[in-house]
């Protein structure tokens, strides 16, 4: 090939790089040189061997992400390299399978959340929230957003990073000390005072408590021309009412529970949808959208990316977002998982988690580990309080039983609290073992 190019050395191809910029040494990367595959495998295995966590039973760790089961079908199907080695479907005719799968994801999620449109994915639940806030600001032309302190603290931080530098004011409201739910009086006051672009509610919230006032807050928001943003995990939507049916204008979530898994926090897909009866939101919606169309000759239907004039590659600095790469494959995983579950499976899964939560709360209370918010109804995650919570967590950890995170890292006033999470993976024996060890420790 060099001969075809009329050069004798590959270096000539780099001759336009200023001499002083040419790197005249080898990059100091890797482990000395190219590795055969068997060495790479061994080396990787050795490194991962330094991970010390060993789950005696599935972990009771929460904090927005819990360990859920990912069906073998999901893993096998997304291992089809026609899916995972493909690119964003810029050429839809050769990518009908992928575009159809994404269209189905949009459709399934819209059904679950009770909204008109869900986009083809954001990076994850945290950035979906930040995008939702900015979407609300664009649509309403207002500059303040009301957020309660009981939404995921890391989501709150992400929203701050994405919003405050452009002059969006985040108005924080508190939570009720008895129920753990948002302080409705404070929300009302903030809405009246600030006339915000939107109010954000997460349910169940970071403490694991189901927010019972979503409908009331939505009504208040509507009354004052604000949009209602609801963050909810899709895994509960067979059991709980769709946020779109409770007054949400914008819905958000994350696919960790429905196919993506933990993976030390990512990747997942961020779910972002809108209820848009007046057509105010769609043109401001960020992210890819797959639509149904027909062939130029009109004989057949097909799927392709639509409304691209909202996007960065067309609209540049006037785009609704800079998002380019998204989380398409995680969206496909979610579509597969939800298709497998169906409406009954999804409801049963929600019931299975709810039942375990109730059992867990009661059993822990019996041995002296009480919920921090006594009047809250918990789902999947429970905030527990004890003066010896730090030692208790350590004691459990030494036995391969993991609870957490401790809330001290996020809330000064909750220094004696921890989250405990239970999912379909826990058997009665698993929970009983946890409770037994907790009881044992607290008796000492």
């Amino acid at each position: 090939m060099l001969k075809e190019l009329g050069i004798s050395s590959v270096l000539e191809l780099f001759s336009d790089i200023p001499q002083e910029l040419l790197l005249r040494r080898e990059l100091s990367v890797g482990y000395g040189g190219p590795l055969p595959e068997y060495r790479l495998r061994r080396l990787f295995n050795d490194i991962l061997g330094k991970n010390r966590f060993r789950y005696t039973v599935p972990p009771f760790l929460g904090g927005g992400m819990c360990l859920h089961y990912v069906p073998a079908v999901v893993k096998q199907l997304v291992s089809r390299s026609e899916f995972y080695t493909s690119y964003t479907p810029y050429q839809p005719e050769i990518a009908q399978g992928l575009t159809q799968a994404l269209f189905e994801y949009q459709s399934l999620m819209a059904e679950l959340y009770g909204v008109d449109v869900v986009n083809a994915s954001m990076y994850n639940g945290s950035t979906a929230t930040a995008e939702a806030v900015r979407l609300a600001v664009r649509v309403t032309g207002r500059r303040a957003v009301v957020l309660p302190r009981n939404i995921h603290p890391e989501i709150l931080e992400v929203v701050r990073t994405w919003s405050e530098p452009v002059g969006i004011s985040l108005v924080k409201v508190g939570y009720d000390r008895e129920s753990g739910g948002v302080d409705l009086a404070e929300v009302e006051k903030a809405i009246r005072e600030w006339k915000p672009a939107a109010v954000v509610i997460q349910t169940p919230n970071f403490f694991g408590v189901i927010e019972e006032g979503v409908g009331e807050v939505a009504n208040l928001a509507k009354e004052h021309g604000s949009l209602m943003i609801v963050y909810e995990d899709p895994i509960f939507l067979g059991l709980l009412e769709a946020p779109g049916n409770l007054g949400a204008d914008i819905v958000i979530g994350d696919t960790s529970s429905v196919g993506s898994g933990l993976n030390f926090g990512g990747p997942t897909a961020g779910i972002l949808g809108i209820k848009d009866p007046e057509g105010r939101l769609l043109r401001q919606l960020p992210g890819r959208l797959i639509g149904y169309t027909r062939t130029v000759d009109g004989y057949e239907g097909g799927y392709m990316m639509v409304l691209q004039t909202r996007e960065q590659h067309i609209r540049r600095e006037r785009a609704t977002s800079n998002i380019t790469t998204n989380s398409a494959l995680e969206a496909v995983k979610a579509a597969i998982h939800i298709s497998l579950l169906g409406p009954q499976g999804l409801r049963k899964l929600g019931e299975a988690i709810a039942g375990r939560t109730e059992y867990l709360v009661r059993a822990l209370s019996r041995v002296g580990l009480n919920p921090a918010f006594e009047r809250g109804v918990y789902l999947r995650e429970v905030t527990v309080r004890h003066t010896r919570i730090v030692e208790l967590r350590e004691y459990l950890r030494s036995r391969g039983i993991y609870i957490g995170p401790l809330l001290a890292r996020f809330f000064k006033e909750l220094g004696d609290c921890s989250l405990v999470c239970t999912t379909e993976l826990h058997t009665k024996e698993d929970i009983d073992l946890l409770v037994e060890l907790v009881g044992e420790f607290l008796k000492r």
Partner: protein
Amino acid sequence: MYVNFRQAKWDEPPIFEVGTFAREGVKVDEEFLSYTSELLSRLPKRLLRGSPPSIPSLSEVEVVRHYTRLSQMSYGVDLGPVPLGSCTMKYNPKICEELAADSRIAEAHPYLDEEDVQGILEIIYTLQKWLAEIVGMDVCSIQTPAGASGELAGALMIKKYHLDRGDVVRDEMIVPDSAHGSNPASAAMAGFKVVRIPTDRRGNTDVEALRAVLSSRTAGIMLTNPNTLGLFEEYILDIAREVHGVGGLLYYDGANLNGIIGYARPGDMGFDVAHLNLHKTFAAPHGGGGPGAGAVCAKGVLAEYLPVPLVDFDGRKYYFRYDLPKSIGRISWFYGNIVPAVKAFLYIAALGPSIKEVAEVSTINTNYMLKKLASLPGVDLVYGHSRWRKHEFVISFEKLRKETGIGAEDVAKALLDRGFHAPTILFPLIVPEAHMIELTESETKENIDHMVKAYEEIVREAYSNADKIRSSPVNTSVKRLDAVYGNLPKNITLTYKQFKLREVLKGVGSS
């Protein structure tokens, strides 16, 4: 004959129409049901699902066949070249896929204690260091879930840097007209006014035009080098001097690193902040749009502004560092897209310093194919005649369009018919009827020759039988789709429910 492509075509209905009987694809236990009712009885009725979501009830085999069929109507690097310019669609080594699926990562909870996840932290720390070495910067964070998120982080860092110095009037970000669309979009998201500057005939950023817009309002410039024409910015050192001279900063878009990796480093060129796309340069797959993984890297004082947490090493153990008082904060929750990041780690580990061969082979591929295509009838090079390209090149079919009516999009569709994914088309915007082609190091000479033959044939046919090209593709699962029709407000159909409402099927059937 190389042309022998016919994509699978299943008349696969939407998943909502796959089965007619209610089936369950997943078994869920009912062990705790009595407790469930107790919990639900304490909730107001209105919070419980009133009517079940209208989603399908399918058996496992129905779901498996549906999505397997859909996979057969998709096209990725494992089937053939995907020469999308600036997308760096290289082969994704299978060993990386297998290893990154390890349960010691898959089941690792993000709130495990640091000492329980030393293995993962070592991977993140090592990757941060390697990436910093590759771009010639001090520190990298891999918290950014994608390249554009790295751009936003970088733009926010630049903004905060100026504000911290009391420099409150710097509200302009300079972006060349050849830049990726995400650059101006990211700058605008961070609150900057975007100032566009042109490209000169040699294909460089126009330094004179740059000088003319530099001022005390300049916050910085966002550049990719090599640029989207595949050309190395010959005057990058002058650009850096000029921008720094007025107190501005330089942002490096790493999407195009593949052509110079190991040969030149953005940090040495004078860039202060950079992002990398781990799913491009470092072989993590693109997943049909994502998830990818990004990194944002910075030099000198700018490193203090990186998103937190970073992973650091105290000589004994790896730990998260949150103590960056000037940090812009979290750009995303947790620690980034770990799985693609692990694949990038494995890729660099496997290659070591020989990773520079990536730049060599991809650059040879680029120039070899450019040479073959540039002489085709109807094809022009708009910028940078007789200059070597790096990771990609851009040709224009403007002449072909004028002479035959066949434009870049038609040529792209005709490529699909020959079993190749089309390159990026109609971009960069400064080249009319553009094909932007990036082969990466993965394509063999034979493959490139096949693609060249396909282009030759298409161009020839454009002159002899333009209608045939215009009616392509015919070998893909569907024929050419109508973007105009699909975007008309009365036709916008984004869900199955809307599809039923519009009775699109009937509409198509009767037309």
